[in-house]
């Protein structure tokens, strides 16, 4: 730390937000276009196995080769994208919808509400996620709804607690007191005055959680939640390619890269949004 020439207060390099947003948008467009293409002009059946044509390298027919059952990797990748991103966004959104109000309420109300809420949260943390998933899949059967439910149960606590911690410190401040004397309902104080303070951290967590959730979905589909084989899905593709770690590492790289790019995209979007909430951002004239 000492030896590094720390620059003076925020003497920043030029930083523009424009290009990031546009890159993100471009990425998103590309992804949408590619999936649309995959839907419309599929050359390959994504679940058609061909044992004699398995683990093929790239060729004109299979631009990314074939997987361990001889299915076209590119097709599966493209189709899997829709599934994967859809599921994980849904799950993440649901986790947010539960976690944020919970955290807001606990942090804002304090007292017994807080205590109760946080003990509930602790309770959830004590459960291993496999148990949750097994019980859900056993009780309710497989299905997207239950998959989402399982992820929500596993994930909401971190959002609730993160939100709560910010709310705890912010609600000491005068402007919240003023808001209260202005008769703002608690809900309104939470949504209007506290939410912008929370957004930054939550966005960071969300954008990175996206990757974790994709991986989580794949492990849940093993025990019957989520996508059933042979539905293409990135996390599962990644898991399936595990045996070929030494012989065909690229099988792992493709879905891996796909997930990375989605997380990257989410992260850029998150940063972009974060900067919007960061009203003191540095913008050079």
């Amino acid at each position, binding site marked *: 730390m000492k030896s590094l020439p720390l620059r003076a207060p925020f003497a920043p390099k030029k930083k523009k937000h424009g290009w990031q947003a546009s890159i993100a948008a471009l990425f998103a467009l590309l992804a949408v276009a590619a999936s649309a293409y995959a839907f419309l002009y599929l050359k390959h059946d994504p679940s058609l196995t061909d044992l004699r044509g398995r683990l093929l390298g790239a060729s004109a027919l299979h631009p990314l080769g074939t997987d361990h059952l001889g299915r076209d990797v590119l097709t599966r990748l493209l189709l899997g994208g829709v599934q994967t991103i859809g599921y994980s966004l849904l799950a993440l959104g649901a986790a947010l919808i539960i976690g944020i109000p919970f955290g807001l309420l606990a942090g804002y109300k304090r007292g017994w509400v807080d205590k109760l809420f946080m003990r509930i949260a602790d309770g959830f943390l004590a459960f291993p996620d496999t148990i949750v998933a097994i019980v859900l899949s056993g009780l309710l059967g497989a299905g997207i709804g239950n998959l989402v439910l399982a992820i929500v149960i596993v994930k909401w606590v971190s959002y609730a607690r993160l939100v709560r911690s910010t709310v705890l410190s912010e609600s000491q401040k005068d402007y919240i007191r003023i808001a209260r004397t202005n008769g703002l309902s608690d809900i309104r104080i939470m949504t209007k005055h506290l939410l912008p303070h929370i957004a930054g951290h939550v966005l960071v967590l969300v954008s990175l959680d996206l990757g974790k959730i994709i991986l989580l979905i794949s492990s849940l589909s093993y025990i019957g939640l989520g996508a059933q084989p042979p539905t293409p899905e990135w996390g599962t593709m990644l898991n399936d390619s595990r045996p070929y770690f030494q012989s065909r590492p690229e099988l792992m790289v493709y879905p891996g890269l796909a997930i990375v790019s989605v997380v990257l995209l989410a992260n850029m979007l998150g940063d972009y949004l974060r900067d919007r909430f960061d009203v*003191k951002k*540095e913008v*050079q004239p």
Partner: protein
Amino acid sequence: MILSIEELSIAGRDRTIVDSVSLAVREGEFMALVGQSGSGKSLLSQAVGRLLPPNLHASGRILFEGSDLLERGPREMRALRGSRISYIFQDYQGAFTPFRSIGGHFDEYQKVHGETSKFVRRAKAAEALESVGLDAALLRRYPFQLSGGQLQRAAIATALLLSPRLLIADEATTALDSVSAHRVLELLARKQAETGCAILFITHDWRHVRRYANRLSVMQEGRIVESGGKHRILDHPQHEYTRKLIEAAPVLGRSLKSGLEEERP
């Protein structure tokens, strides 16, 4: 000339807030800066220490003891700040880190600037607080446990602690009652006499200007409209705005109705 601001402009992304302002503060002088609220006084003063908010940018020249501060490296600036130039900011609450006690701030400040003896540091801190009329017991408190005026006085005490060459005080007495404000200004004057430091004093209070300033500049809408000796401006304001400003000064009751020109010994 300890501080000489030449053609300084401060601009944001889409507008210029301070427009080619020149201002000089002489060695050992009490220079008052008055003017319209929002005219750019605070920004101007912050530009001197290169402490502008990151979205604003200063251009021009700020000569401190002969060299241009805008060209100094961050390390050099750091050496100047706190020891040779010290600040009292308008937002007195922001002067203190919320989770550190007042005493902690005093202690750290002195330690960073080379005072090694803990005993001395503590004694000096207590002394400084008492000099602004605060109880040394407040050292143990956290910032949020002080009243507005107490905080402001604590901030003033820190700023004076190391006898800077230039003190920039941005509306340093707004939260103070007349007794405390008087006490603080007396202290400033005494310090100035002792150490010969220059003071750039931003204020809205004509009484303070009248009583303590040597020279005076008036700002309006990002420009300095008038500068000069205190008496010259108070008695013969030339600019329309200055005149209005002087006239608008509040007058207390009957006894002081005529008292604008009155000087206290």
